[in-house]
């Protein structure tokens, strides 16, 4: 087009387009030199009713409790008894054992898809434990830890993953897109960040009704780019909604590093500041820090002091999903180079250091959980695996589209049943 470059301002250097680039790629040595890690215990703990403007530094710092020796230090160290911390560890180990088994099940062809949360076990589990049992969670697909921490039966998770005849969601949803109202776990959507404004609406409703329950929601750092994220923060700020926004910054969104969500310029926690929302940035591999931050935000919300945004700084240790191979876009051993360690090892070290745990008990527990998951898998398989006969009746495809089935769906249901008889004559 002729007109657009026809009037160069001759004395100006040409503009250039910035396209972010991660510090390392396949073939490079992993590079986390840009990551600034504050020492555990140094971040002050403001009062729960602090003015967001008075605690701006918390959006740029890093709340950390567990130090390198496994000691819980500083003002954020939560006062938890050993029993509770062991339970936390057990849930984290359970989710890891579960992920490993389900990943293999997908590889063995028992289902179509799976997503692990390996390396992020400290994000969902301690947070859930810091919430009340009847607070409502609006998760993304990577917070299976919520269900685990609320003792949802493993077999029902596996039935859902196998999309079989006992699937509580009737084979309708992609594996891991759970839903359990009873466990305060909102139906997971495949479409990113839609849960964010929904969680705000739930929290607003609770406030409008004079309830005492709050809501919590999670999304990945990549997902903060969606418009729904920003709508949610605006509404939460306007109505002072009793909600906790969690951003799980695991550095990657499929193949895109956090720079493609704006991470080169500022922290994700700082997103809250522009809306006047209290923001905390937390070591997401530090179970006690996550617990403490969530507790702080939950207390704040429950006392009508409004929303909090928490960035969980963590690392996605494995592929995005069973459909992904990260060796195509990131340095091979980033996982081992990640400076914040493994969340399970860190909590374990803390319990061991404080004399509440030891290697033998740890190994015994791992074996117990692995057996438990294996047994649940065997049990679930009796109800079928994906694509092998034992699925939900065809009628279920047409139910729940509407509250009542309209005539055209009734006709289509008859058609589906006739097709079934044609394919598999009785």
């Amino acid at each position: 087009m002729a007109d657009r470059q026809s009037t160069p301002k001759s004395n100006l250097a040409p503009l250039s387009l910035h396209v972010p680039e991660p510090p390392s790629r396949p073939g490079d040595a992993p590079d986390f030199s840009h990551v600034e890690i504050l020492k555990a215990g140094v971040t002050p703990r403001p009062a729960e009713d602090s003015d967001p403007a008075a605690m701006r530094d918390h959006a740029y710092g890093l709340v950390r409790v567990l130090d390198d020796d496994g000691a819980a230090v500083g003002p954020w160290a939560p006062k938890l008894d050993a029993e509770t911390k062991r339970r936390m560890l057990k849930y984290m180990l359970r989710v890891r054992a579960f992920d490993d088994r389900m990943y293999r099940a997908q590889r063995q062809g028992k289902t179509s898809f799976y997503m692990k949360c390996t390396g992020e076990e400290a994000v969902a589990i301690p947070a859930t434990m810091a919430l009340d049992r009847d607070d409502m969670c609006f998760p993304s697909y990577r917070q299976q830890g919520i269900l685990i921490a609320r003792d949802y039966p493993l077999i029902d998770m596996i039935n859902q993953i196998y999309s079989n005849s006992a699937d509580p969601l009737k084979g309708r949803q992609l594996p891991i897109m759970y839903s359990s109202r009873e466990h305060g776990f909102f139906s997971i959507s495949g479409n990113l960040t839609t849960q964010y404004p929904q969680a705000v609406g739930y929290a607003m409703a609770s406030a409008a009704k004079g309830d005492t329950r709050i809501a919590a929601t999670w999304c990945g750092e990549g997902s903060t780019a969606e418009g729904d994220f920003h709508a949610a923060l605006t509404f939460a700020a306007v109505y002072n909604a009793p909600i906790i926004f969690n951003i799980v910054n695991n550095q990657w969104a499929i193949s895109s590093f956090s720079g493609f969500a704006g991470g080169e310029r500022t922290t994700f926690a700082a997103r809250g500041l522009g809306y006047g929302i209290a923001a905390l940035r937390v070591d997401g591999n530090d179970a006690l820090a996550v617990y403490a931050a969530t507790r702080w935000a939950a207390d704040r919300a429950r006392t009508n002091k409004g929303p909090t945004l928490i960035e969980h700084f963590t690392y996605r240790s494995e592929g995005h999903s069973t459909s992904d191979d990260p060796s195509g876009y990131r340095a091979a051993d980033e996982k081992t180079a990640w400076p914040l360690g493994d969340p399970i090892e860190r909590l374990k070290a803390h319990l061991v250091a404080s004399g509440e745990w030891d290697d033998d008990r740890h190994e015994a527990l791992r074996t117990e959980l692995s057996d438990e998951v294996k047994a649940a898998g065997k049990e679930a398989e009796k109800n079928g695996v994906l694509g092998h006969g034992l699925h939900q009746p065809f009628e279920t495809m047409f139910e729940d589209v509407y509250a009542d089935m309209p005539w055209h769906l009734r006709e289509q249901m008859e058609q589906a049943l006739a097709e079934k008889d044609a394919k598999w004559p009785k």
Partner: protein
Amino acid sequence: MAEVKPLDAKPAEAKAPKGMNMIEAINSALDTMLDRDPDVVILGEDVGYFGGVFRATAGLQEKHGKTRVFDSPISENGIIGVAVGMGAYGLRPVPEIQFADYIYPGLDQIVSEAARIRYRSVGQFIAPMTIRSPYGGGIFGGQTHSQSPESLFTHMSGVKTVIPSTPYDAKGLLIAAIECDDPVVFFEPKRIYNGPFDGHYDRPVQPWAKHPASDVPKDYYRIELGKANIVRVGEAVTVLAYGTMVHVALAVVEELGIDAEVIDLRSLVPLDIEAIETSVRKTGRCMIVHEATRTSGFGAELSALVQERCFYHLEAPVIRVTGFDTPYPHSLEWAYFPGPIRIKTALEKILKD
């Protein structure tokens, strides 16, 4: 005039180079256009360094540079919105939406902006973008990796909607779409990215390499938008289809030995009405096959057109074979999919009527 290019014809020469699958053909179209036109840019989630979750843009960033092929934030309204702005400047953006199911957050920028910018600015600004997006089911993707939302786009004025069914067509149509000054939604049938599909999910997958339409020229060529392809000439009934369903319908017709005329529409807007009319006048019967839900699907539009224009030539009511009016289920995917049994039942009915 419509082309007549049987899908099952033997290649003209036996030399048959390795051939391209549909992903490779799309990649080749993008590469060709990046070479030919410095204003073409590609953006979308994971399309840059990695080359797209389906690998459609593999190698393009390396070859053409980061300011021509780049990753985007995960924001579909952002992707389409900036593509409108790039078009206003004079670029020719080719945004990718990772799955058609994720196009909805970008809908306002398509419907209210891209589709209307020429009209409301009396042509001062245009939105010459081509939105590529994989669509359709058959890969156990559940309800958010399986949808066929094409009729949302045909329903709004100002956007063209194009759906290829072979590697050869994918390249030629994509090039024409990119060169088109209107916004085009280019839906790619992901089930047939790697090979044609006869609808029998329980049979082994055939690779494109065995199919003549995998013979894709490396160089530039275009297939005009709005020209259907008659993939099988016949007298008994006209079958209208696009995307994956062209192959499924054709396979059923061949299996049953029915003398059907099978038309691959290739582009829904603009539509090759002449090809449809000519065929239906000849056969007197019309069956429409699409994977999308039935109610207000594109089949309804086709059915109305055929009825309005060919009523006195019809010997039977127009019949639609479609997906059911439910979300795409995960485990019952093949009960949902308009496969061989549904098509056969409809064919038998329309031929009896």
